């Protein structure tokens, strides 16, 4: 990834805006951009979703493979989540092996989904010790205008909820719906101009500091946290964004449940 130049004026301006409780695009501190969710958009995937937040656009696709269960867990299948941010999505992304940034993206989304237990890995077992389903969730960025994390997390869970296990194609019984018990969702916050804001744009990310990602389950339980980039934050700042994340994940969950 080539590091883009951070204009000094931008950083100074973001601080002035923050002092006035304003943002570059006139949103409030905790407001989201327009969120659009579509599902079943990829003909070759067993489950898929497309999410658009402002000018950020991502796809998620679910594929299945047959795996041999791990020796210490003979009754369990597996879940793998990988994110790719290829040069398609922005001029700062370069071809080649995944950057540390896209590996972080994939792993943070992975932890949120895995730790929430919404995928029952025991139900993925076909023959104990011999055969089990491996669920692979691939996250793919088309356009990065900031906050890829939340877009990926939403697209990921929506794609999983649509997924059909292709039993027939693999000769292991009939096709069946992948059971997903719960809707873990992530909310991401960036320190911009000295305060945290929700759903930062690319420009805010460019001129901002650290970011915090929170994944919450249906009952508000915390499933994954991640602090990224250089910066320092306080307990009270964290409490404030946790409060917002509780409300916002509920709102998004309602949208997803009515799809």
């Amino acid at each position, binding site marked *: 990834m080539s590091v883009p130049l951070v204009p000094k004026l931008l950083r100074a301006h973001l601080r002035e805006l923050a002092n006035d409780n304003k943002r570059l695009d006139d949103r409030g501190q905790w407001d989201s951009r327009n969120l659009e969710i579509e599902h079943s958009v*990829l003909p*070759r995937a067993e489950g898929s979703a497309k999410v658009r937040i402002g000018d950020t656009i991502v796809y998620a696709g679910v*594929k299945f493979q047959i795996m041999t269960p791990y020796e210490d867990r003979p009754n369990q299948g597996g879940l793998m989540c990988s994110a790719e941010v290829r040069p398609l999505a922005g001029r700062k992304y370069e071809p080649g092996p995944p950057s540390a940034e896209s590996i972080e993206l994939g792993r943070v989304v992975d932890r949120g989904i895995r730790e929430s237990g919404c995928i029952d890995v025991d139900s993925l077992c076909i023959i104990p010790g011999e055969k089990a389903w491996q669920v692979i969730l691939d996250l*793919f960025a088309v*356009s990065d*205008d900031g906050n890829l994390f939340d877009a990926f997390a939403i697209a990921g869970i929506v794609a999983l909820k649509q997924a059909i296990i292709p039993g027939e194609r693999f000769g292991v019984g009939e096709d069946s719906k992948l059971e997903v018990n719960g809707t873990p969702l992530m909310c991401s916050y960036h320190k911009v101009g000295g305060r945290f804001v929700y759903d930062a744009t690319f420009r805010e990310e460019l001129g901002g500091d650290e970011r915090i990602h929170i994944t919450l389950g249906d009952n508000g339980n915390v499933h994954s946290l991640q602090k990224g980039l250089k910066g320092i934050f306080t307990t009270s700042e964290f409490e404030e964004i946790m409060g917002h994340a509780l409300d916002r994940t509920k709102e998004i969950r309602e949208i997803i449940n009515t799809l």
Partner: protein
Amino acid sequence: MGGYGDVRMIDDNGMRMDGRGPGDLREIFIETGVVPVADGSCRMIWGTNEAIVSIYGPMEAHPRKIQRQDSAVLAVEYNMAPFSTTDRMRPGFNRRSKEISKVTKDALESVVLLELYPRSKIQVNIEIISAEAGTRCVGLTAASVALADAGIPMTDLVVSVASGKINDIVVCDLNKEEDNYGEADLPMGILPNTGELVFLQMDGDLSQEEFKQAWDYNMNAASKVHEIMKKALTGGDGE
């Protein structure tokens, strides 16, 4: 390729399994401006193929050692997304993608006026998010639309189509099943205004007559695809 002749892909009336005649194309849809952060972009659906292409540049070429003093550098990345195929495509280095990136670059370099932008770089990113058959053709065609969308000067668009042979009959624009059981494949990259070629590959087995027929099918198909590209770029369908 297998199953020579043991699967019937064309009925006695010359109709193919998806209802097309031998010279017919699959359905094509094109829209531009689909990657808001890019300088130009295109989404192309061709049958159940789907490609998204973004263009960045012309911009300063980094690092300096890749710069050319007399022209721009055209960098082409062709890639298939992991969920684009029936069996998951493992991300990472892939010899097939490298070759397609290269022949696509060779084709586009033949039309883009690179000499107007010395020392800069034009980045072309082709991502196949759903693959049926003929993704290299879709990628190349969509890339030329995206370049035009980005305002990059070029002498012509490039239309890429493939014809092939199934059950000893030459047909245009093979779909997935036809490609799997087909006996030959002839993809071409055609400049629609002049009928000149910038891209050519072939594999399989064609007699001289069959080859001529496949060539003609591609030439005819090129002008049909060109119409759709033109509509998408001038604010017709899909804008």
